[in-house]
């Protein structure tokens, strides 16, 4: 199949520029993405379902609007509808009315969403076109998509490696040019880790800045819907389009409208680095090297890098694996085979519950429900849950104190590059340890951005990641509540 890649946009701005100059139509671009998906998805398994007909119809409707307008009118229209014609993908735990939403679980194999998630609704309202739903770890529990009931999503760079997770399908779809951006959800790194593994941008917004209405819950005080895209500018515009107060999610808050100049790099920005947490055992030399080189780059651009120390950081992972399974065990109680999803037949209601959950929930989901139930059970609740909640509060206070002094905290996104498929699926704890740098932002509700680390770019435009296996890795910035602007400014300095 011949693919006309010259029509493939680099960014949303680039795409809109092509529409303004009538270089291409929305339909041509949408069809281009659909043909790339058709070509690559058999190997990659990023998409679980492609909405071909609806996407083409939506693209044609955009082209009708374009045909009726002068360039100037169209410019004004795109200014108001910032997602005009932009093709995107949604993670399989985000609802779209009338479409299947399975959270990549067998238990929801036949579930059709009866409403659309607020985040999706806002994007579609702003003109975006949904191309389909993408793969993930079952109920967002995992870091490789190996826990999906519908097969693993392979890393578009090298197919024997994982794409990361749980939003592995979202990261792979963007990295393989299967859409311009994708929505993911992040409970402990589920957007940033796959973004890092696939060499794309991943934003976990401030808790409550984007509505969770229509997102299938994993751990409600941690979950947030976020963006995976190719560059900082696109990430920014998508986040702007979907953030804000939503009366259908009581934990959302009002965020201010950000003007484009507010996210530009500023002279005299300050970044804190927790060195003892990064230059230690368990973090690969390549990852440490990427941090050293990034700091040099930031300093050359006038950023002041200061050493910080947060003793509780090294315990963040333990806190996370107490509090999240506890919330999971509670949230997952709704999947009992009565109101929706699959049902196994039992002699009475109790046996129906038990058999349904035993048969149709996957291994990792059951493991976390078991762990969470244990943690919340009589005699253990105070020692684990209550203590972890108090420490979560302390960690948050410590971080906020530091973030009052610096604009962001820099760490790697992951301790290493992507691993091979099957390499880590026998030891759950080994996989949990890969979340060491990402869970903190979720514990404290802070925004964080994973930016691909690129040492150099060759004459063909191919990035050199400076890793032995040639796979990408990410640099993570974490900022204060609702300071995504600082993340974008810093991201632009290094990518």
């Amino acid at each position, binding site marked *: 199949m011949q693919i006309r890649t010259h029509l493939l946009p680099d960014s949303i701005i680039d795409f809109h520029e092509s529409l303004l100059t009538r270089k291409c139509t929305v339909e041509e671009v949408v069809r281009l993405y659909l043909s790339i998906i058709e070509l690559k998805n058999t190997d990659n398994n990023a998409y679980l379902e492609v909405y071909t007909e609806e996407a083409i119809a939506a693209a044609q409707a955009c082209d009708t609007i374009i045909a009726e307008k002068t360039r100037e009118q169209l410019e004004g229209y795109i200014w108001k509808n910032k997602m005009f014609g932009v093709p995107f993908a949604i993670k399989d735990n985000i609802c779209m009315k009338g479409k299947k939403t399975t959270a990549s679980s067998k238990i929801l194999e036949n579930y*059709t969403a*009866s*409403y659309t998630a607020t985040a999706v609704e806002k994007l579609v309202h702003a003109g975006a076109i949904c191309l389909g739903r993408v793969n993930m770890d079952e109920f967002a529990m995992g870091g490789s998509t190996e826990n999906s009931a519908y097969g693993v999503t392979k890393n578009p760079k090298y197919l024997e490696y994982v794409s990361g997770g749980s939003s592995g399908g979202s990261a792979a779809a963007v990295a393989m040019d299967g859409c311009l951006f994708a929505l993911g959800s992040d409970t402990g790194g589920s957007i940033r880790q796959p973004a890092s593994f696939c060499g794309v941008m991943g934003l976990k917004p*401030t*808790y*409550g800045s984007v509505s969770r209405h229509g997102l299938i819950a994993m751990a409600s*005080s941690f979950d947030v819907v976020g963006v995976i895209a190719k560059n900082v500018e696109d990430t920014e515009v998508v986040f702007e389009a979907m953030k804000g*107060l939503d*009366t*259908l999610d*009581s934990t*959302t*808050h009002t965020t201010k409208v950000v003007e484009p100049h507010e996210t530009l790099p500023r002279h005299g920005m300050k970044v804190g680095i927790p060195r003892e947490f990064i230059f230690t055992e368990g973090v690969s030399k390549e990852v440490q090297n990427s941090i050293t080189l990034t700091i040099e780059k930031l300093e050359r651009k006038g950023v002041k890098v200061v050493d910080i120390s947060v003793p509780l950081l090294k*315990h963040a992972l*333990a806190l996370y*694996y*107490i509090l999240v399974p506890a919330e999971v*065990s509670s949230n997952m109680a709704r999947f*009992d085979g*009565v*109101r*929706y*999803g*699959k*049902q196994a037949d*039992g002699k009475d*209601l*109790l*046996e129906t*519950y038990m*058999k349904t*959950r*035993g*048969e149709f*929930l996957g291994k990792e989901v*059951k*493991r976390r*429900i*078991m762990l969470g*139930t*244990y943690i919340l*059970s009589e005699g253990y609740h105070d*020692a*684990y849950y*209550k*203590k972890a909640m*108090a*420490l979560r*509060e*302390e960690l*948050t*206070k410590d971080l906020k104190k530091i973030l009052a002094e610096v604009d962001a905290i820099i760490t790697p996104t992951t301790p290493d590059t992507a691993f091979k498929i099957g390499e880590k699926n026998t030891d*759950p*704890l080994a996989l*949990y340890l890969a979340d060491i740098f990402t869970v903190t932002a*979720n*514990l404290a*509700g802070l925004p964080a951005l994973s930016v691909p680390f690129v040492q150099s770019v060759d004459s063909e435009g191919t990035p050199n990641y400076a890793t032995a296996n040639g796979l990408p890795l990410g640099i993570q910035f974490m900022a204060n*509540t*609702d300071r995504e602007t600082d993340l974008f400014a810093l991201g632009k300095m290094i990518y």
Partner: protein
Amino acid sequence: MRIDTHNIANLARISLTEDEHVSYNTDIESILSFIDTIQSLSVSSSDETTHSVGLAPVGVSRADVVTAREGEYAPTEIVAQAPNSEDNAVKVKKILN
């Protein structure tokens, strides 16, 4: 054996095979030995987190009125998702004798 997986599985309403009991026992033991590291930490603040973001006002509420548009959240559509239903109601097995 520190964990009674049979009791936990019963509380969690999950039927597990004997193999699963064995493997979850090992897994959970190993995860617990990792998370037990927090037991050595002392806690100075007495208040627990009630919300992860210290923004005020926290908690948006709305008036208790139906805001669904025509055709949204239609009962028939929602009941149709249930594995068993009858007369536009979800059907369950008898609970009381």
